[in-house]
């Protein structure tokens, strides 16, 4: 276990380093001069040069990179090239929307995907099971934008149950309204990701339904349901956990589109705006934060999976 942890932490650190280098290097080959873009076409060459010096863009690329990474540890990600606002506090503030959204989407995806997946497997020879599997296949293919539009059309426009768009200006100072604003976006991501989780849960459950230990448990006197719940579902849970490692990346990335669709002030929407404005100091930090979250979640899932799965424990010790 210790060896595994050391290796996994190392992979995480190297992963973050590689991510930061790729992001930084890619953005520095920007076609066109960053200072020129910021200054605008009207600026004189002297003004552009002054701005370049002011922004620190005249220094060697390696120094700029180390400056960025060093600042990351001090919680200082520099200033926006366009608005001159500090980047770190803004990202932190936007995360207060994106992280709850991702967490709520995860809950929605699990609540939708896991029980229905198990049900679809148990009803494998009945029409109900086939219908669930068919619908999951269809929903998993729906573009997230359209899924959001359908939910808005149903719950906001037709039924008037929930707000169509937006987030309260006071943020979480109005917890009820903030929560309500996130319900439809979370359901949007949760439905599409939930369909994917459903399909994995179903095939994992199908696998354990006929596993020897589950059949034996049923043979020595447990009912089929007891046997499945006690001896089958723990291993299904492990499969779902392993799938989550990949799917949580989907949740965070889904947030980029969904925040735009529902006008939520999160990191995803901020990224889309800043990419449009070519505000590279912000773009590089936003991308690193989002990628870092994906890598961290992958790390956490791997460690938890390793701790919980007795088969993997036996191999390592």
């Amino acid at each position, binding site marked *: 276990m210790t060896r595994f942890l050391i290796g996994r932490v190392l*992979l995480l650190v190297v992963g973050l380093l590689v991510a930061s280098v790729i992001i930084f290097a890619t953005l520095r080959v920007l076609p066109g001069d960053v200072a020129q873009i910021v200054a605008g076409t009207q600026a004189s060459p002297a003004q552009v040069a002054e701005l370049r010096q002011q922004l620190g863009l005249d220094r060697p690329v390696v120094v700029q990179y180390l400056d960025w990474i060093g600042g990351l540890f001090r919680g200082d990600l520099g200033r926006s090239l366009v608005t001159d606002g500090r980047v770190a506090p803004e990202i932190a503030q936007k995360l207060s929307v994106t992280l709850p959204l991702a967490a709520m989407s995860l809950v929605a995806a699990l609540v939708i995907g896991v029980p229905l997946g198990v049900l679809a497997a148990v009803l494998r020879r009945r029409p109900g099971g086939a219908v669930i599997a068919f619908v999951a296949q269809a929903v998993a*293919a729906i*573009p997230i934008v359209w899924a959001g539009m359908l939910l808005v059309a149903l719950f906001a426009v037709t039924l008037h149950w929930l707000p169509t768009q937006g987030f309260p200006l006071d943020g979480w100072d109005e917890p009820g309204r903030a929560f309500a604003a996130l319900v439809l976006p979370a359901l949007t991501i949760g439905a599409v990701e939930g369909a994917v989780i459903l399909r994995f849960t179903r095939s994992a459950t199908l696998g354990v339904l006929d596993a020897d230990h589950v059949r034996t448990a049923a043979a020595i006197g447990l009912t089929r349901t007891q046997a499945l719940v006690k001896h089958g579902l723990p291993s299904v849970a492990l499969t779902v956990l392993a799938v989550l490692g990949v799917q949580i990346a989907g949740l965070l990335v889904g947030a980029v589109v969904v925040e735009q669709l529902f006008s939520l002030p999160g990191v995803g929407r901020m990224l889309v705006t800043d990419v449009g404005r070519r505000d590279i100091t912000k773009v590089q930090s936003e991308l690193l934060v989002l990628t870092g979250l994906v890598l961290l979640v992958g790390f956490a899932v791997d460690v938890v999976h390793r701790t919980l799965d007795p088969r993997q424990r036996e191999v390592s010790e």
Partner: protein
Amino acid sequence: MIRRLLARPTGVFAVVVLGLLVVLAVVSLVWTPQDPFRADPFHQWEPPSPAHWFGTDASGRDIASYLLAGTRTTVLVAVGSGVIASVVGMVLTAIGSLTARWVREGTAVLLDILVAFPTLLTAMLLTAIAGGSLGVVIVSVGLSFGVTIARVARGEIRRIARSDYVTAARASGVGGAGVLFRHLVPNAAPLFTVQLSLAMATAVLAEAGLSYLGYGAGSNTASWGSMLADLQTYIGVHPWSATWPGAAIALVVAALSLLGDAVRDATDPRLTTNDRAAGGGPAPRTPDDPATTSTGVTA
């Protein structure tokens, strides 16, 4: 293999939908019912009629014609991403299995890291430097899935290289190239095809997402994604108008991912001939054989 593919309802569905898509894309090159870009302010939001099969949109454009023209973009994005993913995947696989030991292991670690990068973030990164375009969508999906293919192929190729039949072939004097083309390539091909169809499905979804964000197809290219983006503005007035492009995207994506499933099932040697004949319904795997159901997890 094609015959086995078509023995399944899912395989037939996938082949029919994708075949139709390609035919429609070719047709749209020479003919659409109306000019897909001609705005007609006097005929906004018309219901379906003989002149406008699917009605008209906010600027009076003929929805059927625009959808038809959009098939080209969908095919272009899917095929383009597939080609790039294949090339990148094969190059990385070759580097990861044919070079010196330290290069191989370095590549392995790098692939483990790169595979975690979400496609959409790669696309945003490239958009930040190159501006939004279909090219960026194609390149970013191609790169992402090239990495995934190489990562998945690594394990498969190691498994095949260690297998008894490769050992036997080597023992009987078959050289490196012989093993490569007679054993490695044919046995890794199904896995490759599955990943490729997933890459193409992701490409279609990514195009929709990025065009929606304003970074995909330009305004002079018909695309289902930008159609969704246009219609979102009117969601309060015409909430169901996005059904056409949305359903078109979902249909193509479902067909591509079912094609992957069907190819996997049709080529899985663990499925016996009886299982193949028995497979049917939306769940092509025969649930009674644990060996076959486990394949759903590995994909």
